[in-house]
C-alpha cells in the first residue's frame, strides 16, 4: 500500500482517529479496572487493621472516624474495634512528611490502656535496604506493648528511646513521629471511639 501524503487534511484526520481510538479504549479499560482497584485498596486497609488490632467482630472500616489535623494533610482515620460489644482497641493512621523521600504513613493499633498493640506500614518511599527495614520484625518488635505516655518516641540520637535502623536515622525519626501523631489523636478522641 502507498503511504499517505502529508497533507494537512490527512495529518489532522489520522491524528484525530488515533487519539479518538486511544481515548475510547482507555475509558473502557478504566471502567473495567475501577472496581478491582477499589477492592484492592480496601483489602489493603482490612489487612492492615487485622495486623494491628486484637481480635474483633465488628466492621471497623465502615465505622471509621475521620478528623482533620493541622499536622497531617489528609485527615487522620480512627477505627475502633469491638469484641462482644466490649472495646478492645483502635487503629489510628499516622503520617510524617519527614521521611528520607517524603511521606511515611503508618497504621498503629492501640489497646484500651493506650499501649501500642502493633504497627503496619501503609506507605513509604524510603531507601531500599535501609529505610525500608522499618517493615522488618526486628524493628517493629521494639514498639509492641510500649506506652507512648512514658516511652520517648524519638531515636536515641535525639535523646529518645527508639533503637534506630542502622544507616536510616531519618527514616526512624519519621516513623517515630508518625507513631506519636497517631497516639496523640487516639488519646484526644478516645471517648468517641469507645462508645
Amino acid at each position: 500500500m502507498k503511504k499517505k501524503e502529508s497533507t494537512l487534511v490527512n495529518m489532522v484526520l489520522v491524528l484525530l482517529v488515533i487519539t479518538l481510538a486511544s481515548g475510547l479504549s482507555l475509558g473502557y479499560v478504566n471502567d473495567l479496572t475501577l472496581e478491582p482497584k477499589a477492592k484492592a485498596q480496601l483489602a489493603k486497609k482490612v489487612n492492615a487493621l487485622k495486623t494491628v488490632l486484637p481480635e474483633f467482630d465488628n466492621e471497623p472500616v465502615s465505622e471509621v472516624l475521620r478528623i482533620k489535623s493541622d499536622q497531617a494533610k489528609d485527615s487522620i482515620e480512627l477505627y475502633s474495634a469491638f469484641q462482644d460489644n466490649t472495646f478492645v482497641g483502635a487503629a489510628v493512621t499516622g503520617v510524617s512528611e519527614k521521611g528520607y523521600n517524603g511521606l511515611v504513613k503508618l497504621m498503629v493499633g492501640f489497646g484500651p490502656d493506650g499501649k501500642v498493640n502493633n504497627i503496619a506500614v501503609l506507605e513509604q518511599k524510603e531507601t531500599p535496604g535501609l529505610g525500608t527495614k522499618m517493615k522488618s520484625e526486628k524493628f517493629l518488635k521494639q514498639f509492641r506493648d510500649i506506652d507512648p505516655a512514658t516511652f520517648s518516641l524519638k531515636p536515641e540520637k535525639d535523646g529518645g528511646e527508639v533503637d534506630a535502623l542502622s544507616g536510616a536515622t531519618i527514616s526512624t525519626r519519621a516513623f517515630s513521629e508518625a507513631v506519636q501523631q497517631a497516639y496523640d489523636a487516639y488519646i484526644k478522641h478516645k471517648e468517641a471511639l469507645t462508645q
Partner: protein
Amino acid sequence: MANTLNHKQNFLKGIIKENPVFVMLLGMCPTLGVTSSAFNGLGMGVATLFVLLMSNIVVSLIKSQVPDKVRIPAFIIIIASFVTVVEMVLEAFIPFLYEQLGIFIPLIVVNCLILGRAEAFASKNTLPASVIDALGMGLGFVFALTVLGATREILGNGSIFDVRFVTEDANTFILFILPPGAFIALSYLAVVFNRLTHKTV
C-alpha cells in the same frame, strides 16, 4: 526456509547481538531506577515487553495510513495508551508491584527502546516480523533487567527474589542497592556480557 532462518535471527538479535541494555544502552532510566531487586527488574521488564509488543503490532498495522510528518506524535499516542492500560491493570490486580515501580510505569512512555523499535523497525516491516522483533527485544530487556536486579539484590541485600541467604543483621554492600550501585553493576555487567558475546573484543 530462508524466511524462518531470518525470523530466528531477527528474534535472537534482540537478546544477544543487539541487546537493548547491554549492547545498545537504550532505556537507561528504568534500567537504573527500578532494578534494586530481581523481582522489580522482572516486573519492569515484563511491563515494558507488553507495551513494546502491542505498540509494534499497532504501528506495523497502521504504518501505511500514517503520514510521515506526524508519525512520531502518532506513535507516542499509541505507546502512551498502552502504558496507561498497563498502569491501570497493575494498580487493580498487582498493587504490590504497582507501588514498587511507582513513577517508572508512566515513564515507560519515554523509554527510547519502544519508540526506537516503532520508528526503526515496525514502521518499515511486516506484522509477523515486527512481532518477532518486539519479542526478541522485549525478552532481551527482561533478561537484562532481571540479571541487573538480581546482581544488585545479591550484593546489596544478600537475597534473591526475596529469599535471604545471609543472616538478618549481616553486613551487605548497601551501595549496590543505592543509585550509584546501579551504574557500577550495569557497567561491569555490560563488560562481561560483551566479552562473552563478542569474542574478538
